[in-house]
């Protein structure tokens, strides 16, 4: 009996896989509900296809020994950056940004999502090679550089939402690697300054979003309209929700980008607080299992890899959930596993595959 066939069924982390599958299923149901019967036609079939591709990618990464990937990560990282360099210059403009590469069959791929996999591997690899209690200056510089590079390239597209999803990587990496308190203080100060300076480079619509976030009454019909409508959708769902495909806010189009950025508001409307609690609980489970796998990982690189992945997924999820209810400003951050979108689904599943790969190769009963 080969080792592979022997290992797979027993070593799979069932709760983690379950949370990912359940979230994907909930997402698929909501994509169907928010897009079927509308002018643009149902997107459920495509989402199912993306999920299938995601599961295939996850299986590939789960079976692959992550140590090989960690060692190859500098090269993978550089390769993954190539399309990001190419895009701002030659890429087609779709929906106001050069974020996409067109593929056959009407499919498009978003390289910034796929670069996430290489980035997480490289960060884990860097962290593995600095296992002192506190990170050396060189490592810190390397970590900042590895995250800043894709962020910079993605901002050129420009796609603020995706760029922001790289920030938790850096914070998590620095925290996990270990920084002295005064270095943290310096970073916080530098970060604040950068945030202040960024006001001058933000586009008008981005400034509008921040303004309306700070004062929702400012523009009840303008940018604040979306936030208000999303909150009405969420609140009107009540405890039990209006039922699948029964959400008036979402079905009648009051809810903006309801199959993507605001899919959680649509879910909250149709599934109520019960559905909200279930989905947040599933992310909790995913995160909890991630922490568990990280604790049991057989090496520092594996731990780091798992932590970076689950923290990234959880941070995105929390940011999206908060944004839907208007607690954070509207940035194009999607809900991992749930929002419609091939590249995001495939990247998230692929990273989950990395977690499963680490989980399979942990110390327990080796």
């Amino acid at each position, binding site marked *: 009996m080969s080792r592979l066939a022997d290992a797979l069924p027993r070593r799979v982390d069932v709760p983690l896989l379950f949370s990912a599958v359940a979230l994907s299923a909930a997402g698929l149901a909501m994509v169907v509900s928010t897009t079927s019967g509308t002018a643009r036609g149902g997107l459920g079939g495509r989402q199912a296809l993306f999920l299938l591709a995601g599961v295939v990618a996850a299986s590939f990464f789960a079976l692959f020994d992550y140590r090989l990937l960690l060692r190859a990560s500098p090269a993978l990282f550089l390769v993954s950056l190539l399309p990001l360099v190419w895009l701002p210059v030659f890429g087609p403009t779709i929906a106001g940004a050069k974020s996409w590469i067109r593929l056959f069959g009407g499919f498009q791929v978003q390289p910034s999502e796929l670069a996430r996999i290489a980035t997480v591997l490289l960060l884990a690899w860097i962290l593995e090679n600095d296992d002192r209690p506190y990170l050396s200056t060189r490592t810190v510089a390397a970590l900042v550089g590895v995250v800043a590079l894709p962020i910079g390239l993605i901002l050129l597209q420009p796609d603020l939402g995706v760029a922001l999803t790289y920030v938790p990587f850096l914070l998590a990496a620095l925290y996990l690697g270990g920084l002295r308190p005064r270095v943290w203080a310096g970073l916080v100060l530098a970060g604040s300054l950068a945030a202040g300076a960024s006001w001058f480079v933000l586009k008008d619509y981005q400034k509008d979003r921040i303004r309306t976030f700070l004062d929702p009454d400012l523009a009840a019909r303008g940018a604040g309209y979306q936030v208000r409508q999303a909150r009405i959708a*969420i*609140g009107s769902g*009540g405890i039990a929700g209006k039922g699948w495909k029964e959400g*008036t806010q979402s079905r009648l189009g*009051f809810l903006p980008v309801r199959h993507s950025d605001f899919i959680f508001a649509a879910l909250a409307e149709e599934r109520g607080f019960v559905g909200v*609690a279930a989905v947040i609980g599933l992310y909790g489970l995913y995160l909890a299992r991630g922490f568990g796998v990280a*604790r049991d990982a057989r090496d520092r690189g594996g*731990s780091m890899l798992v932590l970076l992945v689950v923290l990234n997924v959880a941070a995105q999820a929390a940011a999206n959930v908060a944004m839907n209810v208007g*607690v954070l400003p509207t940035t194009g951050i999607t809900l991992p596993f749930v929002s419609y979108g091939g590249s995001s689904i495939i990247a998230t599943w692929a990273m989950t595959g990395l977690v499963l790969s680490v989980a399979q190769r942990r110390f327990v009963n080796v």
Partner: protein
Amino acid sequence: MPSSAREDRRPLLRRIDRLAVASFSVLTLLLGIYWVHQVLRGDDYARQAENNRQRSVPINASRGFILDRNGKLLAENEPSFTLLLYRRETRDVEASLRFVAELLGRPLEELRRRVERTRGGYDFVPVVLDDDLSIAEVGAVEAHALEHPELVVQTTERRVYTQGTVLAHLLGYLGEASPEQLASRAGRVRSGESIGQRGIEAAYQDLLSGTSGLRTFVIDSFGREVAELDRIDPLPGNTLVLNVDLDLQRIADDYFRDKVGSAVALDPRTGEILALVSAPAFDPNVFSRRVTRAEWQAIIGNEDRPMQNRAIQNVFSPGSVWKAFVAYAALTNGISASETTFCPGFATFYGRRFRCHGAHGTVDLPRALQVSCDVWFYNAGRRLGVDALAEAARTFGFGRPTGVDLASEKAGNVPSTAWSQSVRKHPWYPGETISVAIGQGPLLVSALQTARAFSALANEDGALPVPHLFRIGEHVRSGARVAYRPPVTERVPFPPGVRETIVEGLWRVVNQPGGTAFRYRAEGLDACGKTGTVQVVAQKQAKMTHQLPEKLRDHAWFAAFAPREDARIVVVVFVENGMHGSSAAAPLAMRLIEAHLRPGSVPIPEPPAAPLPEATPPGGTTTAERGATPPATRTGA
């Protein structure tokens, strides 16, 4: 490869623990926020979501039809088609406008203006591009419904006045409610709604308008209707039956085709208005659409003021028609009917010479009425004094509105010594009384007041009924009827023989040789009447009135009732600059009397074809201009 076994994992595990605490705190916090919105405030948001998706739109009720006393249709409704542009349905409004301009041949500039005017409003509220599409144009637009979903044809109802200009002043017209009208009819009229302006349409707005219905439907975020939730059907307005006899109205309208003035026909017993014409008139159908600038200019630029209802809004000196009431003042103040005066063609009072239009020799009262001798009345007036004349005038209803069911009625003026002191701030000159005695001077009356006063002479009991157009309002569904309820009728007190003496004089005017209207008598009608001529320029300059420019010529009056006993009709005709009361005004009065007393004996003129005007030409105007102030009322002798 660093050996994981040798690595100190404790710092990492500690950090994982802290991260776990932080992460689950964040998730719990988020869950709490959703709890607040969904569970604690859920009902409030549910209401907001309902308001979001529901719209209620009133359904206009069909306005009640208006019929004449014989059931002939005067005002009805017809479908009208409005072209709406839903801006949110199109990416390129300009392209849609160009399409409409080309398809329907409308000026692009005008369409752009209409869109421009609504800028700043919600873009799910449609723009009215055109409110008067023809059936063919409706077809053309609907044939392109797939390419241009932003263009929608809405069917509404438009008021149609079947008789065109014939009943213009009587019926009034519809127009968008002004801010004042909205305020005074709060709750009954919506902003933008068309309501009756003037005439019967205004006076009986509440009876005619019916009750709006309400449609509640689900909309999407574009304001598009998705499904209907509820529908309350409107209640159509009442059908109104008027006292007007369309045949008499047409005869009068036809007579005034080339004249300026007014005519009123009443049933003296009840005050029912059989005909009421003011010339020139306007076409009330014009106001059922948006009035174009050219049309409005044509109306307000006409110096004959077609918007004015001359029968109730223009007051003039009554001229010799007034002598009938001076006769009443004389007979009730001690002057005998048989007292005679010698008329040498003039009389001198207070050192001034007053002319008569002939030398009538020795005349008594009936003769003085018959030949309209001024000298007899000069003398009577001098003896009576202006206050006695004023009292008689007020007894017959002059100096105050008649109470007719039309708005903006003028009271006229009855001069007296008190009036002179309080209004003119100087004493009354006795010489003025001489002028007032023959119906000149500051005495001002309307045609309707005169008709009402003649009713008191026509009625044996001296009844002075309130003239009214309204006969019956009938509810279309239930058939319930609202009939006219007359107020307590005033009476002119006639001492024995007084009325008979005056009527004898008025009868002779028409029926005896020498009577000023003898030429226009009709056999067997037994009409009684009085002619009147009102000087526009002073007598000295007016020797050859027919040579004067038309605007300076005398005005002509004729007031009559028939038959002498149990009169059934009173007619007053006033022709501005018509020169002589007998020749200009009497023929119409006699024709109306004959048509009423002998139905079928007078040919009824066909109404002029009321041309429904073409579609809005360039420079079409707005409701703001439609609501402009009506021209000021002109008064004076």
